């Protein structure tokens, strides 16, 4: 996962938290405009951020939320509890998406539908609330039910399935026999989609597992002269055998433009053709129906086959027969369906499948029951879930048959068939009394030629017996119990439910709400990154500093134990303990430092844009090269670097790099190169800003500096070119003739130097006229720990920051010359001025030489010059936590700070620049 995404996730969680809090506060004071604005800003920012990534699901919801909040903010919609509920729900959803991204790096495609729904609900609030008074709104669950309702309301009978050629339909039907679910997709791209770079036709063509596709126009075409080719009014209709999940994924970017619904394969059974024929049909029907009554499916199939061979294949009859045979072959137990087709031959209208149960959804249990019919002696008391479902189907079918209020000639046969099925059911469920009751009911029915007595028995039976038997055996799914418990008076509901069964069941079980976060298992979803107040880290830093110091006291203690008390054993033990504590303390210090470390990319990342904008403005062509972005340094240092670097880059672009023409004239490539490089060198971070522009002319700098009174005439004559160019860092210096909005105010480089020095860094400028400029900034990696060299003078110890120390040498007294009144010595051919530390600090003692008559000289670098400090003795270098001098001592400019030594003594750290 990239750092940007990580940051987004951690921020998003904060925003969600904030949004939640604000919503809660708003509940207490709904008229607080300030809170509302803040809330809007949260949602707005979160939406904007989410747009950076490819999470359309998230952005969509947030966008709707934003619109809603905007409407509320502007007073178009009143704030209400229901609104807050919806928003919280939406935010919970976003939270879930965040978790999902965190875990898998992507959002599951199935979320698209939820997202579209939530967005729709939020948007509907804008409209509804705007229209009706918000008082009527209550926390009803209506929106959460909508998906189930939506999918249930799609009326299969209304789909233009008949327009699909019979061959395709047969193919589709066969696919369902392999267990594939059919889906009907209606994809209506929005009118402006071409302008968004979409190719909906391509999208439609890429739909997985297409069985049939169709393109039509949503409105009639205007005359060619008025046609707007770029206004999309197409609709794509697709029949596919791909699983719902794949479809959702395919259309995840446009869930609001597609409607996907499950297609019951029976609805594909639409006979088509020439309705010619006549009395033959009637004969055929009379011939085959008895087969059906007696359950002689084989005979039925043979009859149909013969009839089909005799008929013209173009005929409506043939088409119906083909379907009949297909149905017989695929679901031999679905007699209701056969009957439907055969009856449809009378009217030559397509059978109405909406009241017929699609057997293929539960073929396995059905077969089981059939086999149970054969060996009825075997008593099966215990019903599995599957069996219960199958029995339910069978009873429902019988119920339906009995519910027909027509009085066909074969009514008696029908009643007998139903009774036979019911008796079989009783045998299977071990209900012996039931058999007698049914036989009695059948007799009555036959006498009255009415199905009522049987129907009554069935209804009574369903209400008591079945429910009990099912419940006592195994706890069925909620949906199943519901259907059984309710008297199956309305077959249509049953069918709808069963075809939509998977959808409905899951939505009930899982619960459509996106779960309050508080109830979630917190451990799994906790975030990995932690936002900590910087002051807490600082405190930790101080504490570890103190620990390092007190740890350093242990070697002294060991020494004393040995020297003063003469217990070597103890001394050794203390030392070994010390080494352990030392290791842990160092690791701890390192770890805390790591916490504060940040990559320089934090500062660098703004440069590409900056360079692009400025170079455009100036009409220059610049290529920016960033190197070593991963180099890390302390947060304070990185942050203090941001402004100086911007100044430097601006300067380079404005003064350094030439226009393309000027560059070409000088024989350089038209595009200038600006390199910003960061490297770590020891305990220093080195940042270089290099351009290949015109460089800085030292003579111009000297003259300007003189004109502005930065240097006097003598200095102007004396200073080297290199010193001259570094004059640009002097306060009040500017070479530009005209003050522009980019540079020329004469503060830039001075500010840069001050900022760098504030974090104990140094800045150095190199330039070659015509070739380019290089600025080197070296910075300590961390400000917390300073490496100092300890020197001794007049029996006192002082610390000198290692940044300043160039070398330590021992100079024989004979080599020290006095020029005028200053001491100097020659070191490797260079004259180095010498100063006595005692004199500088106002100590009267003379420096001591060692036994060989050599003076200890600490060569330090001050503003690029070497200066020798004569001290008495060199000691070790140590890491210290430097504390600034406070209170009355703060006026002492000779010291930059103090530190506590391991033995409890105080070390004063010299401010070398000040004292020399």
């Amino acid at each position: 996962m990239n750092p940007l995404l990580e940051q987004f996730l951690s921020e998003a969680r904060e925003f969600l938290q904030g949004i939640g809090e604000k919503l809660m506060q708003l509940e207490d004071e709904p008229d607080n405009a300030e809170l509302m604005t803040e809330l809007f800003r949260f949602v707005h920012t979160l939406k904007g951020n989410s747009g950076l990534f490819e999470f359309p699901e998230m952005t969509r919801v947030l966008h709707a939320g934003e619109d809603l909040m905007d409407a509320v903010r502007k007073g178009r919609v009143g704030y209400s509890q229901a609104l807050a509920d919806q928003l919280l729900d939406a935010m919970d959803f976003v939270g879930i998406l965040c978790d999902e991204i965190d875990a898998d790096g992507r959002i599951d495609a199935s979320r698209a539908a939820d997202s579209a729904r939530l967005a729709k609900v939020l948007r509907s609030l804008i409209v509804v609330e705007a229209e009706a008074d918000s008082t009527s709104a209550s926390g009803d669950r209506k929106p959460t039910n909508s998906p189930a309702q939506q999918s249930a309301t799609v009326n299969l009978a209304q789909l233009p399935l008949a327009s699909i050629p019979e061959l395709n339909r047969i193919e589709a039907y066969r696919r369902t026999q392999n267990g594939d679910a059919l889906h009907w997709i209606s994809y209506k791209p929005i009118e402006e989609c071409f302008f968004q770079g979409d190719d909906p036709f391509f999208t439609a063509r890429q739909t997985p597992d297409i069985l049939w596709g169709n393109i039509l126009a949503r409105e009639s075409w205007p005359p060619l002269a008025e046609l707007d080719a770029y206004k999309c009014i197409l609709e794509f209709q697709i029949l596919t055998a791909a699983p719902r999940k794949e479809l959702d994924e395919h259309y995840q970017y446009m869930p609001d433009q597609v409607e996907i619904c499950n297609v019951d394969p029976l609805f594909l059974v639409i006979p088509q053709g020439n309705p010619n024929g006549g009395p033959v049909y009637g004969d055929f029907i009379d011939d085959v129906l008895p087969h059906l009554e007696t359950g002689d499916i084989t005979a039925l199939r043979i009859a149909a086959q013969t009839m089909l061979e005799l008929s013209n294949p173009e005929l409506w009859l043939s088409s119906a027969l083909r379907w009949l045979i297909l149905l017989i072959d695929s679901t031999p137990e679905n007699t209701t369906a056969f009957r439907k087709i055969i009856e449809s031959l009378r009217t030559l209208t397509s059978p109405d499948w909406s009241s017929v149960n699609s057997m293929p959804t539960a073929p396995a249990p059905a077969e089981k029951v059939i086999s149970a019919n054969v060996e009825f002696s075997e008593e099966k008391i215990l019903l599995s879930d599957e069996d219960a479902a199958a029995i339910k189907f069978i009873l429902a079918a019988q119920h339906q048959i009995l519910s027909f209020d027509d009085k066909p000639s074969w009514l008696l046969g029908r009643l007998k068939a139903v009774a036979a099925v019911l008796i079989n059911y009783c045998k299977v469920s071990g209900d012996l009394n039931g058999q007698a009751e049914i036989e009695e009911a059948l007799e009555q029915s036959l006498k009255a030629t009415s199905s009522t007595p049987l129907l009554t028995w069935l209804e009574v039976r369903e209400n008591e017996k079945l429910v009990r038997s099912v419940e006592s055996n195994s706890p069925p799914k909620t949906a199943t119990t519901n259907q059984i418990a309710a008297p199956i008076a309305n077959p249509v509901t049953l069918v709808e439910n069963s075809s939509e069964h998977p959808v409905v069941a899951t939505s009930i079980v899982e619960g459509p709400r996106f779960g309050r976060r508080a109830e979630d298992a917190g451990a799994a979803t906790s975030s990995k990154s932690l936002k900590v107040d910087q002051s807490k880290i600082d405190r930790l830093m101080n504490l570890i500093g103190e620990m390092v110091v007190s740890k350093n006291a242990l070697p002294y203690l060991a020494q004393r134990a040995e020297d003063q008390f003469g217990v070597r054993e103890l001394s050794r033990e203390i030392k070994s303990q010390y080494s352990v504590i030392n290791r842990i303390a160092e690791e701890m210090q390192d770890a805390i430092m790591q916490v504060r470390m940040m990559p320089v990319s934090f500062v660098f990342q703004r440069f590409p844009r900056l360079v692009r904008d400025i170079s455009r403005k100036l009409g220059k062509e610049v290529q920016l090269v960033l190197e070593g972005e991963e180099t890390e340094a302390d947060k304070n240092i990185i942050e203090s670097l941001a402004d100086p670097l911007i100044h430097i880059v601006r300067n380079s672009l404005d003064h350094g790099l030439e226009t393309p023409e000027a560059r070409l004239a000088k024989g350089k490539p038209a595009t200038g190169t600006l390199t910003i490089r960061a490297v770590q060198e020891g305990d220093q971070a080195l940042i270089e800003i290099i351009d290949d522009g015109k460089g800085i002319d030292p003579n111009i700098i000297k003259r300007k500096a003189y004109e502005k009174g930065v240097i006097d005439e003598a200095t102007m004559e004396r200073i080297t070119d290199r010193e001259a160019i570094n004059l640009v860092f002097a306060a009040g210096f500017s070479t530009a003739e005209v003050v522009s909005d980019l540079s020329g105010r004469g503060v830039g480089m001075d500010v840069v130097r001050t900022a760098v020095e504030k974090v104990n860094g140094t800045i150095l400028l190199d330039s070659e006229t015509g070739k380019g400029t290089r600025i080197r900034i070296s910075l300590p990696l961390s400000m917390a720990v300073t490496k100092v060299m300890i020197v001794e003078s007049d029996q006192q110890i002082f610390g000198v920051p290692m940044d300043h120390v160039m070398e330590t040498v021992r100079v024989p007294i004979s080599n020290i010359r006095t020029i005028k009144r200053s001491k100097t010595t020659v070191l490797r051919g260079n004259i180095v001025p010498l100063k006595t530390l005692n004199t500088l600090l106002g100590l009267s003692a003379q420096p001591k030489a060692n036994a060989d008559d050599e003076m200890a000289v600490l060569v330090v670098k001050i503003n690029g010059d070497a200066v020798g400090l004569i001290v008495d003795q060199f000691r070790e270098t140590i890491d210290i936590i430097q504390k600034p001098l406070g209170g009355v001592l703060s006026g002492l400019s000779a010291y930059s700070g103090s530190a506590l030594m391991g033995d409890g003594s105080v070390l004063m750290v010299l401010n070398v620049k000040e004292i020399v």
Partner: protein
Amino acid sequence: MPIEYKKNLAVFSDISTVEEAESLLEWLQNKPLTKKIDLLACTHMHPANLQVLMAQKSSIAAWPKDANLRAWLESALKVE
């Protein structure tokens, strides 16, 4: 590969892009009834072009070789 316009025949090849819809529409607007469309070598057509053809009820001189595309286009363009 853009659409190649002959006197009364527009020959599509490979993929026709969204930019071509405008010129196609212009070409068709002039004496639309005499114009024919050759889709033989076409593999995909941007729907903007398709809309133009559908609106004009273009007569198709040759259907695409690509069977999948042909099925789609026939559903939209075939005159019953």
